[in-house]
């Protein structure tokens, strides 16, 4: 595994930090960690692909995600903060382990479901919300990356729809099993309060209570993410009454 987690250049000296800079710093840290995790996931995926075109595709995605992480780091430098990342933070680590379990089973479809349906729904929705309220180039970067992530999802949807058409029951059972694992972890990350201690990504105390200062809220990010997830499952053709039940059963 290459040095995916080293995307920060030397911190920029900044004489006057905006009062909201520490909030953006934590938001960027979460986003950057997510992108680095995605880059690692795609690289792992390339290792189980048989088709050279799929290998190339996965590696291209990995590089793309790494580029996103670098873009977030650069945005941090622009506002005078050093953006940390921690792919071993407890929630992110569990998400990585869930993905690696799919890799161990050489289950390409499960990998796509975890990365493209679950993790990308979260990324697309939350980046879009942040993109609307973040100032200047910070907002533009979040909005641009949200749009690029959405393109990923479109690419995967065709493969997943075709797979579902082969055996709906089996496919839906697989999505449900992965949902219980991955979406439960994401729901805990997205809870309005971090009830089980520090997330190990925020640089000091939990950023969630401060999100109101930048016209965001943890509830909004969670709501938008779960809505995006439901809509993505709808696009796969999964029954809405079933996926609604799954989502309402997630921890809060």
């Amino acid at each position, binding site marked *: 595994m290459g040095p995916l987690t080293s995307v920060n250049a030397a911190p920029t000296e900044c004489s006057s930090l905006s009062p909201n800079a520490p909030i953006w710093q934590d938001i960027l840290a979460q986003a950057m960690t997510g992108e680095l995790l995605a880059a690692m996931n795609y690289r792992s995926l390339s290792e189980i692909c048989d088709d050279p075109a799929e290998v190339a595709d996965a590696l291209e995605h990995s590089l793309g995600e790494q580029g996103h992480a670098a873009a977030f780091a650069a945005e941090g430098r622009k506002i005078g903060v050093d953006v940390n990342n921690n792919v071993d933070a407890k929630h992110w680590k569990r998400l990585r382990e869930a993905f690696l379990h799919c890799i161990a089973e050489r289950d390409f479809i499960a990998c796509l479901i975890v990365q493209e349906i679950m993790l990308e729904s979260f990324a697309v929705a939350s980046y879009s919300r942040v993109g609307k309220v973040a100032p200047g180039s910070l907002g533009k970067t979040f909005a641009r990356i949200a749009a690029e992530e959405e393109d990923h999802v479109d690419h995967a949807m065709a493969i997943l729809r075709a797979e579902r058409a082969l055996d709906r029951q089996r496919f839906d059972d697989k999505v449900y099993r992965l949902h219980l694992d991955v979406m439960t972890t994401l729901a805990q990350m997205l809870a309005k309060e971090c009830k089980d201690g520090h997330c190990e990504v925020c640089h000091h105390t939990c950023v969630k209570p401060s999100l109101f200062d930048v016209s965001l809220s943890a509830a909004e990010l969670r709501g938008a993410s779960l809505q995006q997830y439901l809509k993505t499952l709808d696009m796969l053709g999964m029954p809405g*009454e079933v996926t609604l039940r799954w989502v309402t059963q997630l921890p809060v």
Partner: protein
Amino acid sequence: MGHSVASLAAVTVMRSERTSDVDFALIGHQESWRAAADVVAVLRGPERTPLPDDEIKDILPWIPPRAVCHVDVGSISCTKSEGTDAHGLYIDSFIPPNRLEAAYVHENIARVRGAAACAIQAGAKIVSLGGFSSILIEGNFDQLPERHNTVFTTGNTLTVAFIVQGIRKMCAMEGRDLGRATLLIVGATGDVGSGCARCLAPLVRRVQLSARNVERLRRLAAELQADGVEVEIATDLRRFSAQADVGICAASLASPSLLLGRIAPDAIICDAGYPKNLSASAHMPEAKVFFGGLGQITGGLKFAPDFHGILNRHPFPDVVHGCLLEGMALALEGRFEPFSQGRGFISPDRVDEIEAIAARHGIYLAPLYNADGPVMGVHVQRWGRRPALPGTAARSDECH
């Protein structure tokens, strides 16, 4: 835990994908946060603690419109030519209860459109628009998504039928002569209000029509006057020359106190608005208020998962809003047609027709009740009959 949920999901998936057997879809939403919380509690299942109210308020607005449960309705008709039951879906638009206002009309129409798309995708043959959905769409049918084999009905004709039946029943229970009454209709130019006016005007002494749009009021008044009905119109309730004996609120009043002094102290009042907000106890202790437009299914009603008493929150079993019942009745009849569409087309003949269809399948006027519970007329009270308790199997035999 996982096993039971997965099994249920599997059954639901199988049913959902047999799209050809979706006879009807019902589009609705929750009227209160309490009702929304109860829906979410059923979805979470009994093994999970209900979500706190603040979480419900945070989560609900983000839920996209979608099917919530399967609905089976039975018919009392046993002839071979007619089906004995119909299968449908309840689709919630998830309009947040605090956004049932004009300020959110575009957002809410988008939600109803989303729910309509779900019904079309499920292959529903007929779709009834419940509650606020009906009000939003009655003048905006062109805003529904493109449909192929799915028809939509506002359900307003059966709502009118049950309002009219309720007024007649209440007058009989109270020993009132409808033929001598002055009838006030608030919200008279809407689809339901104008339908009630056409049905009841020939039966009363005088009609008072109130609405915001004076031009529409004039048109409706002219139509009724052409049939020899004595009609007064006003955009302001204070302008009417006399107090009414019978009132129908076909539009929700900003405040129930607006009726004070405009109706007789012991008037019969049908709250046919949405949401229903009239209460006799607060401002009009002598008034006989009942919730109108409700029907009761006697051939059986099943929800899967079981949302009994959650989606139909009434003090009597199997009571449903007339607008939703219209789609069910038409499905049982095998008449998949847009029975109620647009605004201002409800005639007494059409009301008779849908009433007969509903009755053929055991769908009748629901027992009358209001915010305080079941309504009893003076004749019933004299004999000391106790009202049925919520959830008990009381049947409205007297109205069959």
